[in-house]
C-alpha cells in the first residue's frame, strides 16, 4: 500500500478528479459538464482501488458511470436546446451560499476526525472475504451453534 507507485497514482488521480470536478462547474455546455462528471466518478473509483476496496470501486463504476451518468446523458439527448449556454442562470447566489456551507461542513469534519489509526480501530475494519471463516447456513458471528 505504501509503495512509491501508489503515492504517485494518488497524486495523478487527485489531479484528474479535481480538474474534472472543476470542469463540471466551469463548462458552459451541459454535455461537457456530464462528461467531466463521468471522469470524476472514474477518478473516485480509482481512489477506491488505491484503498484496496475493489468491490466499491466497481460498484462505483457500474452504478454512477453505467447508470446515473448515462441517465443524465439521456436527459440531455431528449431535451431541446440542452447544449445551450447556461451562464444566465438566476441561481448563482444561492448556489454560492450552498457551496460555502457544504465546504464548511466538510472542512469541519476533516478537521475534527482523528486520522491516526491504532490496532483498536483497525479491528473494526472490514476484512477481505478470503480472511472470513467459511459461511454455513444458520451460523452467524452472534449466533454460532456447535455445528459451525
Amino acid at each position: 500500500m505504501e509503495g512509491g507507485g501508489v503515492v504517485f497514482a494518488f497524486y495523478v488521480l487527485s489531479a484528474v478528479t479535481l480538474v474534472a470536478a472543476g470542469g463540471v462547474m466551469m463548462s458552459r455546455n451541459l454535455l461537457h459538464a456530464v462528461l467531466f462528471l463521468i471522469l470524476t466518478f472514474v477518478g473516485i473509483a480509482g481512489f477506491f482501488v488505491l484503498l484496496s476496496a475493489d468491490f466499491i470501486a466497481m460498484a462505483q463504476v457500474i452504478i454512477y458511470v453505467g447508470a446515473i451518468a448515462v441517465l443524465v446523458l439521456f436527459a440531455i439527448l431528449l431535451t431541446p436546446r440542452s447544449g445551450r449556454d447556461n451562464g444566465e442562470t438566476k441561481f448563482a447566489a444561492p448556489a454560492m451560499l450552498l457551496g460555502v456551507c457544504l465546504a464548511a461542513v466538510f472542512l469541519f469534519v476533516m478537521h475534527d476526525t482523528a486520522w491516526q489509526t491504532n490496532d483498536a480501530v483497525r479491528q473494526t475494519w472490514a476484512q477481505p472475504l478470503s480472511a472470513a471463516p467459511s459461511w454455513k447456513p444458520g451460523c452467524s458471528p452472534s449466533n454460532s451453534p456447535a455445528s459451525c
Partner: protein
Amino acid sequence: MMLFADPLFGLPSWTDAIIRVVLVVLAMTIVVMYLTYGERKVVARFQQRLGPTETGPGGLIQAFADAFKLVLKEDIRPTNADRWVFELAPYATFVPVFMVLLALPFAHDWGVRDLGLGLFYVFAILGLNIVGIMMAGLGSGNKYALLGGIRAAAQMISYEIPLVISLLCVAMITSADTGNEIGTLNLNVIAALQEDRPYVLLQPLAFLIFFTAMLSELHRAPFDIPVAESEIVGGYFVEYSGIRWSMFQLSEYASMWGFSVFGSVVFLGGWAFPFGADAHWSVQLATTMVKSLSFIVLIFWVRTTVPRLRIDQLMSFCWKVLLPMSIVQMLMNGVILAYDWPQELLTLTSGAGAALLVAIIIKRAVRRPSKDLVGTYKTLGAPAQ
C-alpha cells in the same frame, strides 16, 4: 507451470505488467485484423460468393491493405461537430474494450491480472462503453449520428440487465462447486471449476440469454439497428473517417473477441474443460481460442440468417422475454441450491426454460401483424399505409 504470482523472466512487477499488456495488445491487433478478413470470407460463403481473393494468397493480406488505406485517408472533422467530444469519442469507446481483455484468463493462471472480482469487473467496465458511443452520437453534430447514438444507448442499457442476470446465475452455480458454499467471481477459478463439465450443460437457458444479449451489446445482426446502414447510414460513426473510424471498427471487433473469450470462459469451460489444468499451456491456449472462434463463427452465422428487428420488437423482446426468463433462471437456481438438490435438476429445469425460450422466439417470429388499425391510425380511422 507459469503462475500469476511468478513474474515473466523474473522481472519486477511493473515491467512484467507492461510486457503482459503489450502481449495482449499484439494478440488483439492480429486477431482483429483477421476477424475482419474472416467475417468477409465466412459471410461471403454463406451468401454464395467468394469474398476477398486478390490481395495475397486467398486474400490473406487484405486486412493489412485495408488498414494501410485507412491510415492514409484524410481525417475529416465536420464544422459543427463538438471538437473535443468528437475527437475523444473513439478513445472512450476503445479503452473499456481493452480494459476487459486485461481480466480474461487465456490459459491456466495466465492473463494480464488475476482479479478476485473478475466477473464483476468485466460487466462494470462494459457499462463504460456506452459513454464513448453517446459522445460520438452527440458530438458529431449530425442527426443520423444522434439517432444511432440514442438507439445504441437505449439498446445497450436494456440488454445489459438480462446479460448481467445470466452471469449472476453462473456465479450462483459456482457456490455449489467451490466446496465452501461461498462461490467465486474470479474468472480463472470459474474456468477451473468447469474441468469436468462446462456450465452450459447446467445452465443452457442462461447461456442462450447471454448469447442473445451479447449479440445486442455488440450491435450485431439481428440487433444492429444502431449501426444499420440502410436506415441511418452507419449510425453513430457516420461522420468519422480514416484512423478514427478504424478505431471504432477495432473496438467493435476487439469487443467481439473479448466477449467470445469471456463467454467461453464462463459457459464453455475456458481453458479447463476437455484437457484439464495439467495440460500444456499451448493446448489450453488453443482450447480457449477454438472456443472463442466458434462463438464468433456463430455470430457471423446468425448475422447472415436472421433479418434485422424493428426497435419496438427489439425492446419488447428484451423486456418481455429475456428479462423475465433470466429472473426465472435465477429463482430456479436459488431454490435448487438452497435445498442442495442434485445438479442434474439444474440441467433439467434450465433445459426446459431454454426450450420455452426457443418456443417463444419461434412464436414471435411467425406472428403475423394485426389487421386491425392501431394507435394513431385507429383514432384517425385511416388505414395504415
